Structures are given as structure tokens and as C-alpha cells.
């Protein structure tokens, strides 16, 4: 007697179920708002602002033009929390009072919920790359090699927008610290996404892949492990090196850069994209690290520890070459031209993401630097609103002493107007303005910020002006 099998149905979540699971995931106590700006040696605490999640729609592909909107930031924060539950983290000063958080973060419930929502969030956050990168024509190994080697002729010595922003900043030390903070999610668990491709069996390429990891892990000598070199960089400029200490100061795109490699490493069907992206990043890092070491020394003086960067100048020459000659070309030889479009995609996609991150960071530095100017802009914009010349939607808010709005961003410009009390408006790391009754600030779209109330109570209004320039006349 035979039993008819039901037809196979791929896993899919309806938008309603997705929202339900996202909220269920993020209401875990370890993901609730923090009462402080920084996490204190607790790698399990990641502020996901679950209170806002019921209003967000992750059941679509976020277009390129909206990639820095709040929904993008929210998705990248959740994805970072999900990916990293595959990684092992322990607090520097011992588990002690963090035992419950440790159990929560690695709990079957947290991991299962994360896995259920991960594919949808990945599609939401990285789906735009399907539109951005398109491979066509007949690629053979020879053309691929020519195309990839053309990177060697590209001038990668020019400073990025981020580096220019730091140099030109009104506060280069703060800007450079903010820069180092953006690298922390990646560098403190450096090469962890890569290790996702160490498991399994896939022939000689696997051992070549592993050789790169051996360098990243400092040959088993802790003080040469790349992540440890970076801890020393952080500490040498007075920054903390505990994992996700500065979670609230990570930009959307900094998380995106880091999550991209987890996304490729977690989904093994994207293995070939990974090797394309790996080739680009290892090759480009050589010049990048040379410039970074110089810039950091210029900004902080000779006491900054830049060995992390100088080490990479030396070793990534090899890693770029190894990625091409020991991974990419032998794999094409072995598996044929079918894998080439994926390699090309990874190579291009990571450049697009790096570009987004470069601009996002430069914009954030400009935003932090214009704190005083944005405070002054309150007056003319408020005049346009109070005179009735413009009538944007308004939210009236009352908050008690020490209420901390965890960092976030808005999709359009806003005007914050203080009716009574005192607010400390925070535009980024070590960057704030004190706003008293009658004062306020323009808040630029997509710019990370938060606030804390410094009086018994604070009554304030948020006017969603869209584009503040339209209020000036």
C-alpha cells in the first residue's frame, strides 16, 4: 500500500506572522531599551527598540533609496543579534551577574525565533542588491581573471569620503573615535563570518580558506590575533574594547557591512559570492590600512596603537592573492563557469555596500559637527511652524527625568521643540546639545541620534517637517 506524499512546500512567512515573530524575538529582555548610552561588558545586550517594531514592515525588499531609513537600521540591528548567536561571547570580567543574559541570548527560544525571521529580514535588507547588480554575457575563466586583476590597476590610494570627513571635522578626535567604533562589530570578532565556511568538505580550496583564517587568528598566539590587535587600538585612544559597548553608536551601514559577510557565510548557497567579496575586501584593505594608520597617527599622535592596521598592510597582500589564485581560479576550474556570475556579484556587491557605508559615515560626521548650527536652525523653522506658514504633523511628548530615547533615526527631517524642561540631545558619540524651553533643533533625515531628559519632566514637540529647507524663506 502506498501513501501519497503531499507536495513539498518551501517555508514562507505571511507578513502578519513575520511581524508577530519579529516582535516576539525583540521583546526578549536582553533587547529592551537601555537606561545608559553604552553597554557595560555585556555582549548579550543589544537594544532593538521592540516598541517600534509593530509599526515596521519587513515583508518587502527595502529599495536602495530607502536603505538608510529607520526600517533598514532596525533590520540590521536584529540581523546582527541573530547572526552573532552562532558566535561565542563571554564578558571580559566574567559572567557573574550576566549569567541570565548569557542563557537568554543562547537559548533555544532566541535562536529558533531568530532563524524563523532571518530569511525574511535578509531579503528585506539585502534584496536591493538584486536590482543593483546584474551579470550578463558569457564569462569564462580568462575573462573573470582579467576582470578581477583589473582591481590591481585601480587607484585605491585615494582617501575615502569618511577619511576626508575625519580630517576636515571640527573635532577630528571625536570623528576618528566614531570611526573606530564603527569597525568594532566587525574587528572584535574578526574573521568569524569566514569561519562559517571552514566546516564541511570541499576539497583543497577548504584548506586554502583555512590558511587565511590561520593568519586572522594570529597563529594561536592571542596577542597577535587580529581582534586583539584591534582591542589595543581602541584602548590606546581611551575607548572601551568590550563587545558592543558602543552598540547605540553603530550606524545602519556599519552593521550592514558586517552583516553582509554573515549573510554570505550563513547561507552556503552564496559561497561563491563570498569569495568574490573576499577578494575585493582583502585587496582593497592593503591601501585602506596604510591610509588608516597614517590618519589615526595624525589625529591621535604617536601614542595610538596602529599595529592592527600595519599588520594588515603586510598580510592582506597575500590574502588578496590567495583569494584569487588559490580559491577563485581553482574553484572555477573545478566547478565550471556556472559559479562565475556569483563571484562577480559578490565582488561588485561589497563595493556597493562599502560605498553606502562610506557616505553614511561622512554624513554622520557632518551631522555631529553641525550640532550648534542645527540648534540655531530651530528658530527660523519654528517661526514657520508657529506662524502657521507650514503645518506638518506633530507629536506631543512628555517624558520624565532620565528617560533615555535609545538611538534611532527618522525618514524625513524633523524639528524638535522644547516646551518646558531640559533635554540633552545626542547626535552621536561624545556629541550633544543642551536644549532648554523655547529652544530646539533640526534633526536631519537618516541621521542617528537619541536624547535624555535632564529635568524633572520635559514637554516637547516633534514636528515632521520632511525637508526643513522648505520651511526657510
Amino acid at each position, binding site marked *: 500500500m502506498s501513501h501519497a506524499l503531499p507536495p513539498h512546500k518551501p517555508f514562507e512567512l505571511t507578513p502578519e506572522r513575520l511581524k508577530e515573530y519579529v516582535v516576539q524575538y525583540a521583546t526578549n529582555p536582553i533587547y529592551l531599551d537601555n537606561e545608559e548610552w553604552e553597554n557595560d561588558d555585556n555582549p548579550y545586550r543589544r537594544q532593538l527598540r521592540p516598541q517600534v517594531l509593530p509599526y515596521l514592515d519587513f515583508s518587502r525588499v527595502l529599495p536602495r533609496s530607502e536603505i538608510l531609513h529607520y526600517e533598514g537600521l532596525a533590520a540590521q540591528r536584529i540581523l546582527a543579534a541573530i547572526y552573532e548567536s552562532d558566535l561565542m561571547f563571554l564578558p571580559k570580567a566574567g559572567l557573574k551577574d550576566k549569567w541570565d543574559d548569557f542563557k537568554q541570548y543562547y537559548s533555544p527560544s532566541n535562536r529558533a525565533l531568530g532563524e524563523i525571521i532571518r530569511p525574511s529580514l535578509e531579503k528585506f535588507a539585502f534584496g536591493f542588491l538584486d536590482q543593483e547588480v546584474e*551579470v550578463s*554575457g558569457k*564569462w*569564462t575563466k580568462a575573462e573573470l581573471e582579467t576582470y578581477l586583476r583589473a582591481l590591481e590597476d585601480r587607484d585605491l590610494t585615494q582617501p575615502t569620503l569618511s577619511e576626508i570627513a575625519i580630517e576636515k571635522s571640527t573635532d577630528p578626535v571625536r570623528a576618528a573615535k566614531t570611526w573606530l567604533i564603527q569597525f568594532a562589530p566587525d574587528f572584535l570578532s574578526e574573521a568569524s563570518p569566514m569561519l562559517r565556511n571552514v566546516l564541511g568538505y570541499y576539497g583543497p580550496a577548504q584548506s586554502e580558506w583555512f590558511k587565511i583564517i590561520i593568519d586572522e587568528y594570529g597563529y594561536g598566539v592571542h596577542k597577535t590575533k587580529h581582534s586583539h590587535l584591534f582591542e589595543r587600538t581602541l584602548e590606546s585612544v581611551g575607548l572601551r574594547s568590550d563587545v558592543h559597548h558602543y552598540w547605540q553608536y553603530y550606524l545602519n551601514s556599519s552593521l550592514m557591512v558586517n552583516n553582509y559577510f554573515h549573510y554570505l557565510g550563513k547561507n552556503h548557497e552564496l559561497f561563491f559570492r563570498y569569495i568574490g567579496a573576499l577578494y575585493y575586501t582583502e585587496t582593497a584593505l592593503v591601501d585602506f590600512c596604510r591610509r588608516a594608520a597614517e590618519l589615526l597617527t595624525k589625529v591621535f599622535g604617536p601614542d595610538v596603537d596602529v599595529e592592527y592596521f600595519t599588520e594588515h598592510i603586510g598580510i592582506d597582500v597575500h590574502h588578496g592573492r590567495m583569494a584569487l589564485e588559490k580559491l577563485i581560479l581553482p574553484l572555477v576550474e573545478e566547478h565550471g563557469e556556472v559559479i562565475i556570475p556569483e563571484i562577480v556579484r559578490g565582488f561588485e556587491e561589497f563595493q*556597493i555596500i562599502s560605498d553606502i557605508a562610506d557616505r553614511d559615515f561622512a554624513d554622520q560626521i557632518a551631522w555631529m559637527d553641525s550640532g550648534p548650527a542645527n540648534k540655531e536652525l530651530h528658530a527660523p523653522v519654528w517661526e514657520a511652524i508657529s506662524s502657521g506658514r507650514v503645518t506638518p504633523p506633530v507629536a506631543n511628548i512628555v517624558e520624565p527625568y532620565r528617560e533615555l530615547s535609545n538611538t534611532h533615526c527618522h525618514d524625513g527631517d524633523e524639528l524638535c521643540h522644547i516646551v518646558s524642561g531640559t533635554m540633552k540631545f545626542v547626535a552621536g558619540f561624545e556629541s550633544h546639545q543642551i536644549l532648554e524651553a523655547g529652544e530646539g533643533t533640526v534633526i536631519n533625515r537618516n541621521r542617528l541620534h537619541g536624547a535624555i531628559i535632564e529635568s524633572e519632566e520635559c514637554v516637547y514637540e516633534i514636528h515632521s517637517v520632511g525637508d526643513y529647507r522648505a520651511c526657510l524663506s
Partner: protein
Amino acid sequence: MPVVTFAVEGRDNCVAIGGSAYVYARTEHGSFVLSANCPHRGGPLNLAEFEPGRSRLVCPWHDRAASVTKAIKAGVPAVRHGDRVTAVLPDHDGAGYTLEHRPMSGALARC
């Protein structure tokens, strides 16, 4: 084989190299690098339209038709990234290239 990056549309949307010219075509059947010169008598394929109801591009000069599915699969290897394209072009005896503008027909400029 020169690796050339050029614009998807507008200024610099054409690579001229050793008597050949290449543009990036975005059609309802897919996108690909198109040789702008018709193999017949050099007609402007950048101005070609589709044969009604078929995926064949028709040269505006003497109506020779060619399949685009073939051009997508077997054509010049290329990748579009945002509004730029990078192509690995066939060798033209070491000739240098210049970027210029060519107008595109409606059928070849669908986003």
C-alpha cells in the same frame, strides 16, 4: 582584454574601440552589452526595436533580426553595478578606447 567601466545611460554610455562600439541595452527580456554596429553594413543597433511579439532586435537599416536571448547568454561578459557597467571586451589588437554618447531606442532603454 580591456576591462572598461562606462555609464548605463546618458553621457559616456558607449565604448568605442578599434572601429567597434558597445552600449548597454536594458530590454524587457534582460540586460546585456550590445555591439552597436550591425554586422551587416554597420547599421546603428543602439536604435534597434523589437520584432513585434518576439525577442529579436531588428536593425533600422535593412531589417536584419538577431536574438537577444543569445546576446544575453553568449555576449560580452559584463556586470552592471548601479548606473555603471563593467565589461571585459574582446581584444582589438591593443587599441585604446574612448567613451562617447549614443542615443538608445525605446526598446533598449527600459529600466
